[in-house]
């Protein structure tokens, strides 16, 4: 539901299982959750996350049902509680939820008593994304490490740039990475990054100057501007690009060895230029790849922990 509810031991377990399941023979793997029923409940469109969770669940052999806002009773005004209870009555043993309101996974869990995986709730969190980002970083910075502790990322500085205010990816990362010893720098203009962000948790800093932030970065995580959540906020995009766009020149000058991440979808030419997105420092496609492994571990955990079949 939130990365804050995961202990570092649990994070280690998820990373370990992700590696194990990824390496396992697909036929063997498909027996793990054979005949188990998982519902994907998506109130917002999402290609990347939905496909990733679906592939993960199917890879473990489970049956999945997709309920999306465009194809169901959701449209007819049914409440989240009632939709959840219906899915449970239909035999769902876990629900993967993407929802436009922050905190909705708690409501769904409370009302259905089923394990709920948070696939993104409002502006709040996107825990599986933070875990796959972590796996991507470890793969390059700490190869082979799956057991993490409070010092694992000591000396690593991760800069998250752009529309922090509306980003659930940013929140999950800023709440997770400092617990592994990383420094997190948030970078963006005040309307997209309020000063109170530093108080969201320990180990978080704010640096408004992108180039100064870049110069300190081991990892740069670029975020898109979420136009749909701007809620009347006026933003001069040309000004924004001048100050915060990650282009080849900036990267070469201030962070020539930094890893470049982006949770997608990317808007080429806005927050990031094509040469950087497709360049040698970019790990954007690798992130997508790690997503399936992490989500296999999460789905397995959801169904074996509370289902009593450990």
């Amino acid at each position, binding site marked *: 539901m939130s990365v804050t509810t995961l202990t570092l031991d649990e994070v280690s377990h998820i990373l370990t299982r992700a590696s194990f399941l990824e390496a396992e023979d697909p036929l063997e793997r498909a027996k793990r959750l054979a005949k188990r029923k998982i519902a994907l409940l998506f109130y917002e469109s999402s290609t990347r996350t939905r496909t990733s969770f679906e592939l993960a669940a199917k890879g473990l052999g489970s049956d999945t049902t997709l309920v999306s806002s465009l194809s169901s009773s959701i449209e007819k005004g049914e409440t989240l509680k009632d939709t959840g209870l219906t899915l449970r009555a239909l035999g769902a043993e876990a629900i993967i939820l993407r929802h436009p309101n*922050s905190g*909705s996974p*708690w409501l769904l869990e409370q009302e259905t008593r089923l394990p709920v995986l948070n696939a993104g709730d409002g502006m*709040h969190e996107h825990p599986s994304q933070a875990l796959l980002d972590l796996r991507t970083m470890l793969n390059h910075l700490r190869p082979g490490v799956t057991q993490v502790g409070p010092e694992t990322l000591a000396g690593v500085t991760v800069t998250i740039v752009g529309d922090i205010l509306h980003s659930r990816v940013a929140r999950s990362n800023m709440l997770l990475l400092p617990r592994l010893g990383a420094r997190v720098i948030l970078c963006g203009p005040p309307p997209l990054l309020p000063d109170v962000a530093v108080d969201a948790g320990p180990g978080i800093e704010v640096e408004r100057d992108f180039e100064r932030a870049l110069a300190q970065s081991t990892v740069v995580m670029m975020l898109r501007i979420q136009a749909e959540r701007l809620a009347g906020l006026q933003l001069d995009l040309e000004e924004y690009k001048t100050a915060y766009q990650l282009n080849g020149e900036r990267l070469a000058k201030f962070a020539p060895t930094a890893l470049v991440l982006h949770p997608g979808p990317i808007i080429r030419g806005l927050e990031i230029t094509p040469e950087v997105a497709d360049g040698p420092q970019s790990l954007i496609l690798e992130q997508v790849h790690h997503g399936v492994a992490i989500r296999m571990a999460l789905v397995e955990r959801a169904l074996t922990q509370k289902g009593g079949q450990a």
Partner: protein
Amino acid sequence: MSTLLIRGGHLIDPAAGVDGLKDIVLKDGRVVEVAAPGKAKQAEGAEVIDATGLTVAPGLVDIHVHLREPGQGHKETIATGTAAAAAGGFTAVAAMPNTTPTNDSPEITRWMQAPERGSSVRVFPIGAATRALKGEVLNDYAALKAAGVVAVTDDGHPILKDNIMREVLAQATRNGLSVIQHAEDTRMTQGASMNAGATAFRLGLRGMPPEAEYGLVERDIRLVTELVHAGATKAGHQPHLHVAHTSTAQAVAAVRQARRNGLRVTCEVAPHHFLLTEEHVGCYSTHAKMNPPLRSAADRDAMIQGILDGVVDAIATDHAPHAAQEKEVEFERAPNGITGLETALGLSLRWLHHEWKMPLGRVLSLLSAQPAALLNLKGRGTLAVGSFADVVIFDPKQEWTYQVRDSKSKSRNTPFDGWTMQGKVKWTISEGRVVYRG
């Protein structure tokens, strides 16, 4: 009507300056005698309530409740809301006009007070300041007052336009009515569902900045000042601005300053605002969602300070019942508000009196004499001879646990379920009738 003798209790009547063992005789809905123990002369043939070891006080007065009728009987009815009031020791409640339809008229005002509503305690309707709470066209205050309204407000829909608020204050003053403002500059709170700050940021919720509250309080005080300077008081009435459910330190400071400047500006604080903070939102609990929202610890402390040092004039619950299905939704979609009538006395006694050492008489005054005076409810908030026979009798020492499943209210939306309270209500008497027996 029968005669009632309340015998052996410790009477605390701050407005009358009484704090000691007294016997009280109630007859025909009024207090007819307050005498030393055993010395009452008019108690012949009276039914006796033995209040030995108990505190006897004027029935409590809540000047901010939502009884939901007409039109929203699935949340609460006047009968269930006032039954909850009686259980909480209240004998008079002022009902907010955001009903369906809104209380814009003498007809609705009278309908709310009609005997058919089955009210346990006295209901004082508050009229809508503007038609349908839209902040555009003023209602007819003279007609509303004649029908029984005790104040006007657009509670829940703050009056933002300066010219309209100026006119509301002027008309209300002319008619001897108080203006109650729900101070929230809604231009700053669009889409927001809790207090602005680090907690809201972490939870991914849009926040309501404190300035949305105190900015409007400051604006209203400026309008009152202008009205006074323009000579509005010559007509005999002084403008009275009452700030509803104050929640920010700066709003209390603004009220304090206005009073120093000689203005009649008052404010109330709800128990949740002197007890809880934004941290109680926790995992998106909709029982911690209200408007104004739970604020920071510093704001909460300022509410306590304001109560202790006297700038706060009343404790009011903002009792706001909502049906279970309305609260069992996403935090951002849930309606604002919690119930409060049954918990206000127990929480106030436990925290203000027991924990923070406020004298019992002062706590009771904030719950009866002061709010009654504030809305000019004659004969309420005191047990002086001639007053209404509105009495609460409680055991000041008894600790008890609030169980929402036993609530008399139709709704169950409270964050105080399972909380330890102090001061168990034993009897509530409204105009001479026993309306609750605990």
